[in-house]
């Protein structure tokens, strides 16, 4: 699972949960991989407009991969390639292979296996 995806997921599907974002990532360090993905500045810049940047930063920090990433969005982010490269790295190049996404309201854990989060609920959670 990449952090760009984590930035979209919530646990509001659970009955009664309204503040299910962002999910907390729990993953052993050896199950977090760095992959190489071609940098596309236009794409990264467009994504910046739709991201929850704080959630992205916190997620990167949790995984220990936030070095170099500013805590706040720089004002000229659309054209600042250096900044965009750092965002690209965090968004697209960090992959969690095994771990859990934890609901901030209920503590319910959604497993991640083979890089794929399992967001399916049990019968009593719907």
């Amino acid at each position, binding site marked *: *699972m*990449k952090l*760009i*995806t984590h*930035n*979209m*997921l*919530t646990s*509001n*599907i659970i009955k009664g949960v309204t503040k*299910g*974002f962002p999910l907390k990532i729990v993953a052993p360090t050896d199950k977090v991989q760095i992959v190489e*993905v*071609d940098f*596309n500045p*236009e*794409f990264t810049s*467009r*994504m910046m407009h*739709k991201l*929850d940047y704080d959630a992205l930063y916190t997620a990167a920090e949790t995984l220990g991969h936030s070095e170099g990433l500013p805590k706040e969005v720089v004002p000229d982010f659309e054209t600042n390639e250096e900044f965009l490269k750092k965002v690209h790295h965090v968004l*697209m190049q960090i992959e969690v292979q095994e771990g859990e996404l934890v609901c901030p309201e209920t503590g319910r854990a959604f497993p991640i*296996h*083979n*890089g*794929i*989060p*399992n*967001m*399916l*609920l*049990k*019968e*009593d959670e*719907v």
Partner: protein
Amino acid sequence: MTELKSIIKVFSAIPLLNKVVHEQKNPFFVVDLPPEAASQIMDRTFLVRSLFEYWAEGHTKEELYDNLRKLSKDFIAPFLKHDKTFRVKIEAYNKTLTPDQKLEKIQSLPQDVLDFQGKANLKWPDNSFHLFEYYGPAGSTPYEEPSVIYFGRFLKDGQRDKIQQYHLQKRHFIGNTSMDAGLSLIMANMGKVKHGDLVYDPFVGSGSLLVACAHFGAYVAGSDIDYTIVHGVGKSSRHKNKKRSSDESIHTNLKQYNLQHHYIDILLADSSKHNMLRTGVQFDAIITDPPYGIREPSKKIAGTRDKNNTLDVKTNYSLSESFLDLLNFAAKFLKLGGCLVYWLPIYRPDYTEDNIPQHPSLKLVGNCEQTLTTLIARRLIVMEKCSTCQGDVGEKGAIVVEDHYKNNFRDRYFQVGLPQTQYNGEEQINSKDTEDDT
């Protein structure tokens, strides 16, 4: 035509087609396009077979020759030069011409106008000229004489060959209902998918639609409720293999075509649960093929107890409900101007336009039938988000005027119907079209 119009929107710099006169079953049509635009279109289209520079037309051959004579000498001159090789080909639509007939027709073209000074080269000419005769719609009794004849110079072919490149036969990972390569690419065109877009498929299966979107440079993600397909495990869908090999996945499919840099993620999830995605998430396109309840059952997670009081966790999802859900999902998560492209299965005797699901924020821009048998077809629906939805209207605004699936669709599907590739009265999604350019 729908594919062509969508492609034109991708290249928004192209001025809109002025009044394209297109007779429904006639595979030829004339357009007015700047040459660069024409080139861009031909680089993307799979349904338009070829593009020709329009020279003249006529309802009779005399009329055609008259019109050819009216062409300016300056226009024709460059092609007549002695150092330019040429060939003239003739194609009759809906009729087979004998070689003698072909020769005769070519030779009766006005030699005073088409006064080629250069040599003829049948294989690799500098310029290839084409005479097209239309003898009526395919499959009907050919007219005695062609109703219209065109003459033009070949410019460019469409992308039909790409379909071979992505053929499912060579795809590493397929499922029982993987979308074929040609249709996947056409769907991506219908969805105006372009470089840098973010595309989502909520019924992703083996990812064949994502592969097509990645081909156009989009970044792709999707979800599916089925563990075995998402993880690429279990029984293989290929005839010979028993089990899937250990590296079957959507990611390896993309890697096969060097598109792995466009892979975002696949989720194991129930696409009817819209709250899984945060409000504010936006996709440029949603391209999908929802289950029709025939080979893959439509499912969602809900709690219902059966007569033994055991919980049937995955409950059957009525077809109508699943399409309404899809529209609500698209209305919420598409950007303005973004497209939803999906297949709607229909039982032809009952079909009416009222069966197409609607939503106040989505405009219907395409509805093309692919006939499968005399009784069953599926329609490729293209919808464009035209307004942002507010609150409940957005979340639950999808409606269908006339529910097509009141009667069990699955039972109707298994009724005997005759296989068909032609159907009178509608533009077929499989048709071959040729295009002339002024």
